[in-house]
């Protein structure tokens, strides 16, 4: 099916981050259309029709999320989640750094749609350059009268503020993000109440991923039905995939949902490096269960197919591992990541991730015991679904899939006390 240039249409142009460049390609016309020609409810309806689902990982229908916002007079907020911390994911960075105005337009339209006058972009702390680009872009747009009070002369105020995180993966979780935005520790909150009713400053808040918001202008421009025509029956539209690891051409590619997995790896990303064989793929960021080379045969890149294959589309971060990769070490590295990033609030996640690392480090160092595998698998019973936020479940993804699918490799490590691949 090949690449489909929708979100990434502008990124290769010179000075793509400038307002001028953006306006040349029809920029902010969609905002004008929304502000002047459409009622907020219509926009929500269009988005619902488009079948757009959250691109951050959970895949919750965006239109539905917006419709949860109560129609009251209290202040409402829109938060753009640009805390792209999931290992393997770097798709939002492209939009932020190369086409910030697309994002701003998306935010403006969405804010209008849900009735918010204030929007925040929570960008991860490491993307300092991205934050600067966005701030410059906001300034440009405000000076041009596009954003700010009385946006485009419509009488509707839209204020966008860039908020930098400071290095905490868990802040990608929406309630933790809200806490972080309020200047607190990034601890996820207990749900209910959900952010849609009590979010930022205890007011209704919508939190959307960068990619989701950046798609909104196109839906407004060409209609929900048009967007729904892309992709498959249930997974509609296009999606950015960031592919990394042992492929010849790693990078961000925009594909229609439903593109065969193998096409992405072998054709678009140029195949495995040095002609080696594929061993395993993590299809949607490190928290999704990994798939073996056999399992991805015939699998299409959409929400349903991947779920059927036993994994998730997630944030579309494909990490490709060839035959030289030691799965035990990879699992160990990911467990270490989750142990480092757990917020430390709830017991199963805090203690479970730490224990995982302790056990895996023993196995990697050749001091594993066969009982350890049972203990690791048993963690699913204790952590799975019992944590305050999804981080605990995320930590289980690579662990459980790694042990079940590559058990031989673990057993080999334990029995011989060293890595069969010589790592």
């Amino acid at each position: 099916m090949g690449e489909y240039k929708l979100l990434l249409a502008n990124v290769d142009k010179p000075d793509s981050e400038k307002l001028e460049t953006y306006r040349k390609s029809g920029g902010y016309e969609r905002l004008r259309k929304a502000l002047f020609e459409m009622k907020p409810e219509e926009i929500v309806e269009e988005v619902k029709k488009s079948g757009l689902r959250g691109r951050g990982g959970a895949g919750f229908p965006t239109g539905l999320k917006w419709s949860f916002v109560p129609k009251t007079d209290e202040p409402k907020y829109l938060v753009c989640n640009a805390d792209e911390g999931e290992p393997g994911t770097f798709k939002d960075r492209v939009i932020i750094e190369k086409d910030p105005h697309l994002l701003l337009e998306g935010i403006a339209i969405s804010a209008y749609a849900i009735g918010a006058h204030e929007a925040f972009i929570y960008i991860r702390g490491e993307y300092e350059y991205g934050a600067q680009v966005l701030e410059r872009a906001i300034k440009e747009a405000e000076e041009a009268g596009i954003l700010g009070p009385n946006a485009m002369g419509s009488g509707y105020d839209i204020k966008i503020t860039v908020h930098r995180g400071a290095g905490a993966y868990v802040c990608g979780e929406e309630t933790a993000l809200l806490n972080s935005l309020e200047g607190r520790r990034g601890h996820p909150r207990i749900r209910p109440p959900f952010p849609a009713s009590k979010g930022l400053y205890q007011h209704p808040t919508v939190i959307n991923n960068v990619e989701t918001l950046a798609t909104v202008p196109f839906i407004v421009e060409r209609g929900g039905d048009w967007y729904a025509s892309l992709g498959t029956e249930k997974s509609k539209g296009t999606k950015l995939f960031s592919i990394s690891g042992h492929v010849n051409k790693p990078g961000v590619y925009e594909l229609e949902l439903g593109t065969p997995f193998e096409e992405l790896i072998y054709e678009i990303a140029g195949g495995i490096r040095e002609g080696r064989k594929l061993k395993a793929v993590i299809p949607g960021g490190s928290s999704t269960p990994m798939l073996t080379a056999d399992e991805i045969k015939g699998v299409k890149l959409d929400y349903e197919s991947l779920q059927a294959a036993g994994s998730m589309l997630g944030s579309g971060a494909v990490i490709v591992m060839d035959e030289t990769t030691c799965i035990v070490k990879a699992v160990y590295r990911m467990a270490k990541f989750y142990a480092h990033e757990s917020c430390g609030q709830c017991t199963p996640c805090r203690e479970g991730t730490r224990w995982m690392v302790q056990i895996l480090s023993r196995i990697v160092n050749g001091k594993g015991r066969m009982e350890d595998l049972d203990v690791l698998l048993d963690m699913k019973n204790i952590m799975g679904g019992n944590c305050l936020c999804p981080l605990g479940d995320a930590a289980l993804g690579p662990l459980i899939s790694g042990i079940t699918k590559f058990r031989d490799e673990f057993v080999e490590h334990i029995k011989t006390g060293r890595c069969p691949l010589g790592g």
Partner: protein
Amino acid sequence: MRAVIDKEFVSEATWNKIQDLMSRYPDRRSALLQVLHAVQDEKGYLDMEAIKWIAKLFKLPPAEVYSVASFYTMFNLKKVGKYLIQVCTNISCMINGAEDIVRHIEKKLGIKVGETTPDGKFTLITVECLGSCGKAPAMMINKDYYENLTPEKVDAILDSLK
């Protein structure tokens, strides 16, 4: 009671920036992270003095500010070198040889991960995903990204900084 803040603690530019940041949000406290960033940008790291000063600024107990600052990995609560080398060792970078890069830097600078060179110039730490998986392995020195690293490239970068 009227609180008196010692404005001299930071430079005027930073003070103005802080004032701007604090006026941006519906709730003043939201600016805490941004103010911590701003003060760290000026001072290099956040010591107890800085924490206390910020606490007074926000009318919060210092313990609360310290608690927030210590939650986020980007705030240095101890002195770091002039160049803070942050090498990503997460999965994508790892399978592309980040560990070799770390070992190479350790050897070159003669320090271990988490240490600072005796001349106070370099501090080496490993970090989680920098969002540069497509150009792995990657590292960040202060605020700049360096991607697609090889030992030779690292040598060149470090030499240019010396």
